[in-house]
């Protein structure tokens, strides 16, 4: 590093500062390491520990081994929560991701691109909490959705959406689609616009129609960006909390809880801390597995 400094001068410098030279980099890293260790890593490890205990937060945690994990599979609420989480993940792939791709393909072929991008991306600038408040209003018994249905003569379809399973989950997914489709669309659009136009021209010259071109040329070339979008969307759909907590609190009768919400309710409403911690670990395990699959697909050597 100090090749250009004359040897003698360097030796003096090294001698005088050798202790500090070795310590300096760690001193610079220390604040960041301390903050992360105290506020993030220690809590994560502690949650792992708590999941093997029975704890009400008042008395000392009592070690009970795998009891909490076995208990998970006995509670119907946990089953509902897992099913809802799977619905969220699958629906996320269909709507925010699938619709995002479709919109990107459409927008790529028409004028006023910037305008369309801005409109669909706009909800992303609003917090999930505000979106939840807005959509609760949309879906209220006398809200916009029901009023529109009545206006167009479909009044029989009007219902208190957020109070009826499975409509509560379905309509929250609508809100989520509204919130996140724009970002996926823009990522896909970036991918589409990096495809060389002559490849598509060549396919057309070979007699491929629009759909075949899309299936055989565009989709394979979009694969890298698709991997990114799909993984992020899946991981995020596991973590959705704000929307559900504001719109239904997981209700009515815990019918619309996902794992992220069940963990919060068991921990901070029911104060079954060991059980809540075991759900947090279950959720982490799934999210980390998906992240590893994702990392492997990125770093997979070119075939």
């Amino acid at each position, binding site marked *: 590093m100090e090749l250009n400094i004359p040897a003698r001068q360097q030796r003096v410098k090294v001698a005088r500062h050798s202790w500090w030279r070795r310590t300096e980099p760690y001193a610079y890293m220390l604040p960041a390491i301390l903050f992360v260790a105290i506020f993030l890593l220690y809590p994560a490890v502690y949650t792992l520990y708590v999941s093997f205990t029975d704890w009400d937060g008042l008395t000392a945690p009592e070690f009970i081994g795998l009891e909490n994990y076995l208990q998970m599979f006995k509670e119907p609420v946990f089953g509902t929560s897992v099913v809802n989480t799977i619905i969220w993940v699958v629906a996320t792939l269909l709507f925010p991701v699938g619709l995002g791709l479709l919109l990107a393909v459409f927008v790529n072929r028409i004028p006023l691109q910037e305008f369309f991008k801005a409109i669909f991306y706009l909800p992303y600038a609003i917090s999930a909490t505000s979106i939840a408040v807005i959509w609760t209003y*949309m879906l209220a018994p006398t809200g916009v959705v029901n009023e529109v249905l009545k206006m167009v003569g479909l009044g029989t379809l009007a219902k208190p959406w957020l109070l009826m399973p499975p409509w509560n989950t379905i309509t929250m997914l609508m809100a989520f689609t509204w919130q996140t489709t724009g970002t996926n669309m823009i990522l896909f659009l970036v991918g589409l616009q990096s495809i060389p136009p002559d490849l598509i021209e060549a396919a057309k010259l070979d007699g491929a129609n629009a759909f075949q071109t899309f299936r055989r040329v565009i989709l394979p070339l979009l694969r890298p960006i698709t991997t990114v979008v799909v993984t992020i969307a899946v991981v995020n759909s596991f973590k959705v909390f704000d929307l559900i907590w504001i719109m239904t609190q997981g209700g009515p009768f815990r019918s619309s809880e996902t794992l992220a919400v069940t963990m919060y309710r068991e921990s901070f409403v029911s104060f079954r801390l060991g059980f809540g911690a075991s759900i947090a670990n279950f959720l982490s395990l799934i999210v980390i597995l998906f992240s590893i699959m994702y990392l492997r697909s990125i770093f997979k050597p070119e075939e």
Partner: protein
Amino acid sequence: MSKKYLTRGALLLVMSVLVVFWLIPLVTTFLTALKTSQEAAATFPWQLPQGFALPENIVWAWNNGKLGQSFLRSILYAGLGAAFAIAMASLAAYALVQLRPKGAFIWFLLIYSGTIFPFQMYLLPLFFMYQKTSLYDSQVGMVLFYTAIAIPFCLFVLRNHFTTIEYEIVEAAQLDGLSNFGIYLRIYMPLSVAAIAALFLFQFTWIWNDLLFGITLSKSPDVRPIMAGLAGLRGTYAAQNIPGVLAGALLASVPTILIFVALGRYLLRGMTLTTSGE
């Protein structure tokens, strides 16, 4: 040729219909926030308001809904949290890239591992840790936590950015006798101003939008951050004053919308950064 224009026209039509649908929630929310609560109850959401009650509704949300305190607190939390995180992450990133201590990559992974867990992993121990140390429901506690949660991502971005700084510049500075800290302060930081500004706004937005930690680590109106305040406002007044609650939801989004408008393109780049980062 005409077939091409036909498909293009059809696509434009489909997209325009979708745009209308996409705008309905925002337009009706905005129209309702312009009405008094009596008017909102008596009219259809898409009917134009008779007066202009938006200022009253915002003042109501700010004062009666106690959103004002949360709004100001969140500016403090998001501003300080993002700034502290960048300060610490940039020092650590500088050490990793320039001073290259033993096991640099392990240290990087240790700090960066703060991004892999779902937030539910942190909640319980944090809550009890905060209760024991009187950090619970305190402004200091909120700033400390938001700083910590922002560090790993800041480190990731800054470490990447710092590797692009040309070695010749650093070498010249060393010859001029600048200390290591001097190089950090006079060379690395000034050369990263654009990246740091974008990172700051990105982290500001994240902290501003947080609900989960806000409701877990605070409860009183003069501590809880904006989204926790908005959740409380809605919980209390949803039935009584819909325009006021919606005005609150819009008010809570003003800073992030401003950032979005000012930085549309950068945010997009930030998004691709997050994307490749997770």
